[in-house]
């Protein structure tokens, strides 16, 4: 029993991070119908920025964890957001009116550029940052125990706050209405006076910010990263986005959590060798019965 509970906790924290990154894939797909393969690498860039900011903050003698995490979050999100904006300007905007395939190739190119740029500028070595927050809460369950580090609690809290804030922005604010209108019909939205180019830029910035949120949390928790770290987690987050229904915001979050929890439970109760096989089989099965994902809307051909 304690083991199942512990695996649920493991899965929830992992899944909430998948969900944060999946948001970037799903929002970009929803608004311009392309898969931004450079998104995993945006996450990777944010891990490096996190480490640099943490190093700078401790250089200036700031030791308190709440200040470090809040400072790191703000600075990293701002810089990573700028990366998201620049990537859109450089790699995708010039291809706005060409086919989807060109944009896809451009995305893969962007991903390679980011990886190699970081590798050259920061070195290929494994990087690590020291542990910021130690300690854990421990619950006794039956004759075993469930142990959750404070950092995991911070991850859950911040991730769900982030998702909640984003949902509020999209559902309730003027900016959110503009995003949704652009997603439903870009031409009509622009006829009605929405600057759709700006909306698309903003969507890229939002996606990058969410990836940065995940980057800060994961980097502070695991401490280790390298220039290739965006690849696996990017693939997982993309799977989560497809699982939940690509284009759907709640779908991305739900997909992330389902993927994280099922992966953890499978690895923990059956075999960790085949956990990826299991997650991708799950994806296949869901796509057979719901081709547009759990919360995705079937695509209607507009005539």
């Amino acid at each position, binding site marked *: 029993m304690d083991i199942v509970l512990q695996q649920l906790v493991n899965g929830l924290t992992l899944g909430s991070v998948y969900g944060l990154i999946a948001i970037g894939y799903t929002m970009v797909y929803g608004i311009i119908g392309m898969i931004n393969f450079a998104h995993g690498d945006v996450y990777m860039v944010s891990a490096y920025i996190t480490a640099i900011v943490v190093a700078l903050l401790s250089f200036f003698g700031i030791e308190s964890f709440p200040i470090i995490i809040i400072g790191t979050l703000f600075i990293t999100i701002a810089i990573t957001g700028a990366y998201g904006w620049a990537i859109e300007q450089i790699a995708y905007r010039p291809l706005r009116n060409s086919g989807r395939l060109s944009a896809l190739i451009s995305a893969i190119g962007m991903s390679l550029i980011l990886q190699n740029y970081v590798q050259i500028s920061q070195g290929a*070595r494994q990087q690590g940052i020291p542990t910021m927050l130690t300690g854990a809460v421990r619950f006794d369950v039956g004759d075993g*125990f469930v142990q959750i580090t404070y950092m995991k609690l911070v991850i859950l809290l911040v991730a769900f706050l982030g998702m909640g804030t984003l949902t509020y922005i999209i559902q309730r604010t003027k900016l959110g209405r503009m995003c949704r209108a652009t997603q439903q019909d870009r031409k009509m939205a622009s006829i009605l006076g929405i600057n759709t180019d700006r909306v698309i830029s903003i969507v890229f910035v939002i996606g990058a910010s969410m990836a940065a949120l995940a980057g800060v949390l994961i980097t502070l928790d*695991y*401490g*280790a990263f390298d220039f*290739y770290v965006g690849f696996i987690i990017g693939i997982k987050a993309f799977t989560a986005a497809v699982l939940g229904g690509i284009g759907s915001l709640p779908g991305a979050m739900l997909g992330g959590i389902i993927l994280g929890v099922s*992966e953890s439970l499978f690895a*923990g109760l059956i*075999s960790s*060798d085949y956990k990826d096989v299991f997650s991708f089989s799950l994806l296949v099965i869901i796509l057979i019965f719901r081709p547009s994902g759990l919360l995705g809307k079937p695509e209607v051909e507009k005539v």
Partner: protein
Amino acid sequence: MSNAIVKKSLLSIAIAGAMGASVLAQADVVIGVAGPHTGAYAAFGEQLWRGAEQAAKDINAAGGINGEMIKLVKADDACEPKQAVAVANRLVDSDDAVGVVGHFCSSSTMPASDIYEEAGVLMVTPASTNPRVTDRGLSNVFRVCGRDDQQGDVAGAYIISELNAKRVAIIHDKDTYGKGLADATKSALNNYGVTEVLYEGLTRGEKDFNALVTKIRSVDAEVVYFGGLHSEAGPLVRQLREQGSKAIFISGDGIVSNEFAAVAGSPEYIDGVLMTFGANPKSYPAGKAVVDNFIKSGYDPEGYTLYSYAAMQVVVEALKNNDLDPIKGADWLKTNSVSTVMGVKDFDSKGDLKVSDYVMYEWDNQGNYAQVN
């Protein structure tokens, strides 16, 4: 038809001859240094390069090989088998290398060694410990490190007789090296009549092993044996400690890197981690001058640096005594001993060292390792 083939092959022999002549004319002996110079395991590539580069410098300063200078070529395989094949082809085709120091990961060394054999290039790996590297009967493959079955025996014996552990979890990274090492330890343990309580793989490149850690906890393992590299061992041991497991963590020579502590987040997490590795390469009297030289230049010759230096010496000795013929050199190595910075090395008919010297090391809470007495 057959005539045409004969003509073609005659032509190609002529071309090959001409190219061979041009190599001799250059008066450079090209030796490749192959390993993960980039990628997640680049720290090991750096050790290889530092050792080989210093060896080449020292040998050239002492007059080179029969008067010809060594020219090193860096070949980056990133520990990817596919890339290893590509760089091996490049080394033999366009760089005309006669010898190779490398590769690092066993999974890269094996496919690359087939290409070197075909091209008649001598390969000495400083670090690939998987038994199948030499067990496949290639004539040109040597190593100056031990084998995983020897390493597994040392680890198994230590777990049984020193730690008195009965509940052992064995984890590997599903790669040739990691799984081979884990299997060697597993069979050593099984020979002592201990069956592991858990045997699982993790995915290289991931950082979250919490699910696996919980599973290790659930089987009440006293000892966790990990076959793999430091980039996965670091997060794994950290997450074990974070979830409150006090199991003793043992691994092999794949975690010998000063980065191990950094990757684990803090040296305190790796306090007490055990690993098998060759007897301190810095302790040989024969290598004292070289070690001092390294330290003077501001580089601590950690991990495989001196192995790489020794591998270069082996390649050079074989070439020097056989008129730069790598094929004759390979035969020569099997009957002659070579003195290196790590003492005198003798090879058996497969290319393995006749004597291996694995011992147990322990990491402390400062991120350093020392031999366990």
